């Protein structure tokens, strides 16, 4: 594994950008370039790569903490953890095997291996998220460069830390608009001793109801997904607990549990093999079937609905006859929010914010990046 501290060069690049009023487009491997709004195209912008800033700075399995540089490939980090029977419990996607390209089948390339920094900046979590927590839940500390080109350290490597505002968690999902992530400390957990997935055939009503009921009972649930016909429930923990949980849930045991959940996590499942825009609907877990034209896949025990619209319902870019507004409204009324996860339409990528919230966002951006250097427009046009 490469071990290279490139923070001084990154800091210098930010200093230069500041002096020359340049915008910096922060990039790890580019595996998630599809995500977010296209940054405002200006002549005066350049790519800032974190790729050279690599390596694990500290990993002590007994402390349940790993600190690594933002350019560290996620799969390398996970391999180091796996050697010690530990894991990133938010089960982040790697998005490195070309699964999100239109053709769907390109081989993995080195250039597109998700980095730790990109994973945290996007705040992505996988199927385990409702039961063990999200990317931001596991972030303990960070070192960043702010828009003044200062290197700042927040949080740390201990489990509990309430000194100062929780800036490290604010960075998660901020898409690099508040600063350049240098190093990140994460809480890690032991790998489950065993895992098993049960499959049941049922209606969508039953699927949503059972996923929620089981999550409210003392079963060792670690994932729950419904693909429109089959309900998949993963159990993790001590072998005896998994076995007795499986008996209570019933259904059949899935042969290759691991590759099924990988296909959900990496969006490689048959449902996703499609060129149409992919919408992510984050909703309360008990939301009944959402009546939209097109197809849906339910993950996160009901709290995450992947949606692919019929083309005549939400049209591709350029078509004036769009239903984005009604989609926003439907999901807002449910108490959730919409993300255009992948694909090109006339809609903004992220759910519009209310005016008072947007005002706080603008002022926060100003507080971290007064000149608007970092990833302008990637999250919201105003930021």
């Amino acid at each position, binding site marked *: 594994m490469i071990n290279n501290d490139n923070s001084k060069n990154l800091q210098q690049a930010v200093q230069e950008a500041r002096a020359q009023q340049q915008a910096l487009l922060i990039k790890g491997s580019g595996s998630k370039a599809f995500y977010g709004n296209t940054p405002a195209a200006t002549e005066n912008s350049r790519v800032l790569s974190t790729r050279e800033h690599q390596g694990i700075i500290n990993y002590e399995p007994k402390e349940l903490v790993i600190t690594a540089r933002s350019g560290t490939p996620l799969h390398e980090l996970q391999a180091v953890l796996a050697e010690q029977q530990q894991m990133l419990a938010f089960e982040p996607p790697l998005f490195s095997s070309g699964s999100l390209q239109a053709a769907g089948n390109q081989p993995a390339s080195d250039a597109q291996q998700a980095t730790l920094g990109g994973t945290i900046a996007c705040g992505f979590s996988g199927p385990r998220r409702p039961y063990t927590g999200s990317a931001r839940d596991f972030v303990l500390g960070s070192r960043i460069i702010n828009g003044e080109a200062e290197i700042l350290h927040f949080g740390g490597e201990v489990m509990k830390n309430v000194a100062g505002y*929780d800036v490290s968690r604010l960075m998660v999902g901020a898409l690099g608009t508040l600063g350049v992530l240098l190093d990140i400390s994460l809480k890690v957990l032991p790998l489950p001793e065993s895992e098993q997935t049960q499959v049941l055939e049922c209606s969508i009503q039953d699927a949503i109801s059972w996923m929620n009921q089981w999550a409210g009972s003392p079963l060792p649930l670690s994932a729950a997904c419904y693909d429109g016909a089959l309900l998949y429930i993963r159990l993790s923990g001590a072998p005896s607990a998994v076995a007795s949980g499986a008996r209570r849930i019933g259904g059949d045991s899935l042969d290759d549990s691991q590759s099924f959940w990988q296909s959900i996590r990496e969006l490689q499942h048959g449902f996703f093999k499609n060129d149409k825009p992919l919408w992510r609907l984050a909703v309360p877990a008990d939301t009944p079937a959402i009546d939209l034209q097109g197809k849906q896949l339910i993950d996160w025990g009901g709290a995450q609905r992947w949606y692919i619209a019929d083309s005549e319902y939400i049209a591709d870019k350029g078509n004036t006859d769009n239903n984005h507004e009604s989609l926003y409204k439907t999901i807002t009324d449910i108490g959730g929010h919409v993300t255009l996860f992948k694909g090109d339409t006339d809609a903004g990528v992220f759910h519009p914010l209310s005016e008072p919230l947007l005002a706080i966002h603008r002022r926060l951006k100003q507080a971290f990046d007064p000149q608007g250097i970092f990833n302008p427009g990637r999250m919201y046009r105003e930021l």
Partner: protein
Amino acid sequence: MNKSELSSKLKQFLPAAAIISETEALRPYECDGLPAYRKMPLLAVLPQTVEQLQQVVKLCYRENIPVVARGAATGLSGGALPLENGILLGLSRFNKILDINPLTRTARVQPGVRNLAISEAAARHGLYYAPDPSSQIACTIGGNVAENSGGVHCLKYGLTVHNVLELKVVTPEGELVTFGSAALDSAGYDLLALMNGSEGMLGIVVEVLVKLLPKPERAQVLLAAFDDVEKAADSVGEIIAEGIIPAGLEMMDALAIQAAEDFVHAGYPRDAKAILLCEVDGTNEEVSEHSKRVYDVLTACGASEVRTARDEAERLRFWQGRKSAFPAVGRLSPDYYCMDGTVPRKQLGTVLTRISQLSEHYQLPVANVFHAGDGNLHPLILYDANTPGELQRAEDFGAEILELSVEVGGTITGEHGVGHEKIHQMCVQFSEAELEQFRRLKAAFDPHGLLNPGKAIPQPKRCSEYRTIGSGSASCSH
């Protein structure tokens, strides 16, 4: 604006009983759970509805009057210490549980609802609210959010930030906004995460949606006695290395053991130098497997005795001793001062040794009670405020413990907050550039600096003074 002018403006939209202005009636509001610091507020105001609260905040915004929010005032860092020129905004009347949804495993509550009341109300659905600070009988959920409170179960179940889904917040301008959502995330920046632990400085929480968890099928506690504190500390890492995340992992030293034993007769071994309480929970089978493995680890780590609670009554008694450790130690001395540093677990032994050396140096006894699984120390420094100089010595001793925590890679506060108390040590933990970033962040939410000003984040002048003078022996020289 003077007191009576302000009072009459408030009376335009608040009932007279919601405004407290008489000196004697204000007395209970002059401090929180850290009574060493006291100040009388200009007025205390106890609104009953969100609309009233918004009007109070809007008035303060127009008139440039600082606002300090307060829940049950059980905080241990002076976070709810009033300001002489400000309003003390009591949230005690927001005490309703609005909804419990057993299917989504959530509870929607007002900020003045007590922590334990949520679990009590959820119990009939087999659910509970996980974070359980020692003050959970009294402390409120709004205060828990402000401090990002922990408890004895947070290694496995997380802090407040991990268990809150959505907040309704009144901004300093008096507007009502929502951070987070009833889904698992929300659009934009993670303002919900930022609110947790922000000590009432970014907004006033008026409604909280918390996550509820299913009660584990079974919980089991093991009590291990050690004749050496370091051995006990080392066994903590060994349990983790075994791949087990205990629901609770608590440690007490000799003085704390004896105090707890005298107070509640928990059945602790009196002659032990340290005890470790390790709770494992989960399904029936899992608990059996894990208890056995923890037993073996503790024995291998040199425990002189390992006991497994025979029944639920004994399990609760073991915990009773730990949960009443603070009042138990309180019986040994007229006053005690509770610290809250967190250190990497591997440093526990070193830090405990240093604390006992400092105890000799300052001639003040110290009892150690802590969340060993999280490396969160609660040294209780015993002193007598009526003996001239002892409070100062206790504070200096405390400051050294906090700086020691930073020195070994930890933090000055794990769960009690900075408040008024640890504001100087913020200058030790953070650089001026980092503190300035905090100040700009605060200004993004509160441009006029009206919410709990002066707490948590020190002003540059304060830091430069502290760094120059140092507090007695509490300089950064070691």
